[in-house]
């Protein structure tokens, strides 16, 4: 079932592509002096030499050894693996977009600029913020940019002592990492019994050294921080700002806005909420959106609409500067814009509503059989714990996850958030039907029953894949990272 490396099929002289012959006037190439020899490469690189069909079969085979949303249900919590509409793929192939150079004269790229401008307008409306930047290439990149703006804001105000970023214990790992990259110290905020921010703990940590609180809402337990207005008021009162991690926006888009909740800056994951494909880990897109307070600090250039059309504006003295090579992952932006056009104001609201409906429905089926440590109504995702299964039968969250692979599903997120031991985090998204959710729940429950009778069976899963569980210790201790 496995596929050899393409380099191992290499045969000298085979070609999968040929270039047109150089057709310059006779003698030009010969007369052209070579580059000085000390600048020339010495050792050739070892690359495959194969025929075109070899390339096609190789990568087609590799695609069959991969699993995407198009293959089956993908309830990976916090990743919003919803269906990626084919219309976006079709439009992203238009030569009128793919052949555009980022530095061609803007009089010739008004179409691209109009898409970016209008996308920013729509994202501003959806988030309740004033404006944004499309340059960040991923969610974590957006966090980095948002915190950089917070840094610049306090530097501008001379508040150099604001050196702390508060992060709840349930936050994504990127949050603290992004804060540290901007030179902040990270202070962890505790969660209370309900799985929400412990407001007393938060308040005890609020003082003149706090630059910002980073919050995901709904949080990674799938719970809405219902006291968000009190939280934001307290942070603002001490002079700090609020950062919204938009990873879970899919639960509330069209229903409520981070702007109304009091957030000053946020990032979106267009590859989650706005249905652009994940591509096996990227490219994504992580626009940052800000309110008026932080708007002067947005990356440059900005895009403005003038009488003469769309222009870039570079003259922005407080801007943090550029954050990526050109203007962002344009083809991803385009797909997200297409999604918003398709769904419209009612559609995005319907997406959120059905994401929440699906999560609660699945939870209602599973909670009879599994521990849901933070019960009650959830938003778009929920977390179960396999701790008791581990104690009683030795079955871990990982074992359950691997068992699901054999049933034809992508497993939920494992071991996150760390607040819950032996956690499995489910986010079914609005894309799945009731029949799919029923079948999924039935699979998981029968897996559980089987595991209780025969724990060894699950320990050996998965059985249907080209390889079983891999020796990760060996992968680290004897690194084999290239051919």
């Amino acid at each position, binding site marked *: 079932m496995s596929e050899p490396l393409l380099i191992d099929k290499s045969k000298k002289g085979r*070609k999968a592509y040929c270039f047109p012959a150089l057709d310059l006037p006779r003698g030009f190439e010969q007369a052209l002096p070579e580059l000085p020899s000390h600048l020339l490469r010495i050792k*050739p690189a070892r690359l495959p030499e194969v025929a075109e069909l070899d390339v096609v079969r190789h990568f087609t085979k*590799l*695609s069959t050894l991969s699993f995407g949303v198009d293959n089956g249900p993908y309830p990976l919590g916090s990743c919003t693996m919803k269906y990626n509409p084919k219309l976006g793929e079709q439009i992203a192939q238009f030569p009128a977009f793919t052949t555009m150079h980022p530095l061609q004269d803007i009089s010739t790229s008004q179409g691209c600029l109009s898409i970016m401008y209008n996308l920013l307008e729509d994202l501003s409306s959806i988030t309740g913020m004033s404006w944004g930047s499309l340059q960040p290439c*991923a969610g974590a990149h957006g966090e980095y940019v948002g915190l950089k703006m917070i840094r610049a804001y306090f530097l501008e105000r001379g508040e150099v002592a604001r050196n702390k970023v508060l992060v709840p214990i349930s936050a994504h790992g990127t949050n603290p990492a992004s804060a540290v990259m901007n030179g902040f110290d990270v202070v962890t905020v505790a969660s209370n019994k309900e799985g929400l921010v412990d407001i007393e703990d938060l308040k005890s940590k609020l003082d003149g050294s706090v630059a910002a609180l980073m919050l995901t809402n709904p949080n990674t337990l799938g719970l809405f921080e219902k006291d968000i207005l009190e939280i934001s008021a307290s942070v603002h009162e001490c002079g700090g700002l609020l950062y919204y991690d938009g990873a879970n926006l899919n639960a509330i888009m069209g229903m409520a806005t981070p702007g109304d909740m009091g957030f000053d800056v946020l990032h979106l994951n267009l590859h989650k909420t706005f249905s652009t494909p994940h591509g096996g880990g990227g490219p994504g897109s992580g626009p940052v959106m800000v309110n008026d307070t932080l708007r002067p600090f947005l990356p440059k250039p900005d895009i403005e609409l003038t009488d003469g059309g769309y222009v870039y504006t570079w003259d922005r003295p407080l801007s943090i500067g550029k954050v990526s090579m050109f203007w962002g992952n344009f083809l991803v932006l385009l797909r997200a814009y297409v999604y918003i*056009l398709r769904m419209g104001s009612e559609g995005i609201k319907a997406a959120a509503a059905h994401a929440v409906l699906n999560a609660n429905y699945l939870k209602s089926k599973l909670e009879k059989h599994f521990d849901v440590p933070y019960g009650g109504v959830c938003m778009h995702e929920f977390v179960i714990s396999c701790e008791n299964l581990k104690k009683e039968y030795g079955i871990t969250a990982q074992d359950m996850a691997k068992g699901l692979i054999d049933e034809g599903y992508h497993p939920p997120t494992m071991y996150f958030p760390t607040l819950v031991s032996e956690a499995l985090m489910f986010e079914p998204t609005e894309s799945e039907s009731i029949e799919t959710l029923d079948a999924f729940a039935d699979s998981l429950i029968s897996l559980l029953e089987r595991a209780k009778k025969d724990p060894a069976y699950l320990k050996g899963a998965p059985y249907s894949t080209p390889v079983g569980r891999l020796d990760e210790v060996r992968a680290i201790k004897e690194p*084999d990272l290239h051919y």
Partner: protein
Amino acid sequence: MVYPYIPHTDEDRKRMLEAIGVGSIEELYASLTEDLLLSDSVPISHGRTEDEVLRMITAIAQRNSTGIPFLGCGCYDHLVPSTVQTLASLPSFVTAYTPYQAEMSQGLLQASYEFQSMICEITGMDVSNASLYDGANSAAEAATIMIGSKRKSKAVLVSGTLHPFTLQVLHTWALGTGNEIRVLEEKNGVTDLKSLHSALTDEVAGLIVQTPNRYGLLEDFSTVAEQLHEKGCLFAISSDILSLAIQKSPAEWGADIAIGDTQALGLPLAFGGPSCGYMAVTKALMRKIPGRIVGATVDGQGRRGYTLTLQAREQHIKREKASSNVCSNQALAALMTTIHLSSLGWSGMVEAAQQSYVKAHYLAYHLAQLPGMTLVWDVPFWCEFPLRFSDSKKMRKFLQELRNEGIFAGVRLSSLTRETKDELVLLVAVTEKRSREELELYLAAARRVMK
């Protein structure tokens, strides 16, 4: 309205709400207080059908116009085999998440392993990650590695000939962190390495350079690695990866870190993104390199398989102790580069680089004969070169008239640097894709305008 992306019927909703034990979807939002729930829909347009969206986007697309691009500056119009787009569009590549579940993601993982292998082969380095956002962000990550690798360092030296946007991204990187970017000035279009020795103070952690540089010129890094290593500093070289088919690889210059974009290998111009950043390092830096890395190992039965490895470097484990926050990368773009290189092989890569070299020199040679424009420096270049115009009126006319003939003649350097000293400099890029006919069209138009 029925939404094709949401499968629920009225009957489904009813059954699901009953099972949950609530009367309506609104009840599920009870934790949102009334002052948070929007009373109205958000002010964006109503939904549209597929056909309506297609028509609308087609109309917007008509406001773009394309020409024969002699534009570069980090984004180049090379030939791309048909295999690339076709195979990279296979849905189980496109719609997959990061391959955390290795057993069901062997294809993606193996493709990343092959990508890493090719990057190691081409750069000559020991360890490559599975991609970063773009070349500018790879440079920022290299700066982070440098600071983290030398005790009590707080400055990174960079060449003034880095791509202006890379330099800007590096300045943003330093902002508010206590670290600084120190610029090594240029002389005659290349880094002034005479000043390197005196610039290597204790707080300097390393040097980042670029070749071909911002002008398209090839730089000479003889003795640079030795000088840096003697002071405990790291050496990073940024390169258009295709240029490494001809010029010395970063490893051959003695670099510790190789960075850049792979856009020239299989990625469309796409208005500048997605591109794909690469980073490869020496073995000594294996645990400092950011981003995902795929490794080969075996399963319980001894079968070879691939998995994400060395994950304890990463943010999802190390949180505030991680040196980088990178999570998503540019996996699908890296896959396109992998398919491209698999199709070209080494001989194809050399051919593309060599033809670009020859064609660029053909155009440069003939343009240099014309009055009113000169090649700025007599320094070796590869596929892009700087032309200086004698006056700005002439330059504008040149660009305008060539654009009228469907030729995008080059990038004004001042549009990147926003500096008056660069206003008369035009950067012209020529790839193997430009046909003889297109080159002659350019020359004929140039002769007409510049006579």
